[in-house]
């Protein structure tokens, strides 16, 4: 995968970062996906969950690290082989939490279609939805640029 550098609009993205950071922090020690581990042997359930949680935390830290002082100076974020997969996964985790925390009133079909009338949403929900779309855009961008070498690794 070639390195991708994307210049983002600071005035647009910067206000979203607080929501993304708060949502990531809010995940805390819970898994983004509300999975049931009932079918996992009771003896391994704790270890299974802890390992998922450790990976999730590491992914989110990598995502948040994209928006460092250099980003605020240049507006540029970069993706390459070393971080692409981790960031795609972190975006998924934060989007799942955004949905759970702010977007529960939006029906699934509306959320899946992205056909949301922004003007009817209150400020908090609208900002969360913008974050939700922004992270989806990051995912799409990376997925489009993944090559077969990464898929096979």
């Amino acid at each position, binding site marked *: 995968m070639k390195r991708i550098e994307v210049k983002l609009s600071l005035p647009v993205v910067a206000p979203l970062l607080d929501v993304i950071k708060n949502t990531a922090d809010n995940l805390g020690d819970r898994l983004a996906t509300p999975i049931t581990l009932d079918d996992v042997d*009771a003896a391994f359930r704790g270890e299974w969950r802890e390992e*998922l949680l450790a990976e999730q935390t590491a992914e989110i830290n990598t995502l948040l690290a994209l928006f460092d002082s250099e980003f605020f100076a240049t507006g540029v974020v970069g993706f390459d082989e070393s971080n692409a997969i981790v960031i795609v996964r972190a975006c998924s985790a934060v989007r*799942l939490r955004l949905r759970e925390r702010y977007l529960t009133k939006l029906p699934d079909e509306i959320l899946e279609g992205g056909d949301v009338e922004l003007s009817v949403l209150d400020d908090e929900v609208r900002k969360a939805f913008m974050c939700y779309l922004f992270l989806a855009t990051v*995912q799409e961008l990376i997925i489009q640029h993944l090559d077969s070498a990464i898929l096979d690794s």
Partner: protein
Amino acid sequence: MTIVDTGTAPQIAPRKETVPAVQPEGLWRVVVLNDPVNLMSYVVLVFRKVLGFDEPTARKHMLEVHEAGRSVVWTGLREQAEHYAFTLQQWHLSAILEPQDETH
């Protein structure tokens, strides 16, 4: 309950406390459940990367998840099924294990 023959009157031995355990025998399914959040392109990527599906197969299973709410993406022995379920969960998909004999 276990009956112990002591040579005199039968006595009832106390039953040992057992912890419910998953029966690992037989075939297990790895089932991915729908969620309204993950992008279709993301789910296709995960299926390709984790399960080694080619693009059409990955897309077929993704659509099945989307339209039917679930898709059986792998069937086999318990240990390998656990591996796939765990890896799919690392990708934040709702993956569960089911014994093959459950009907859906």
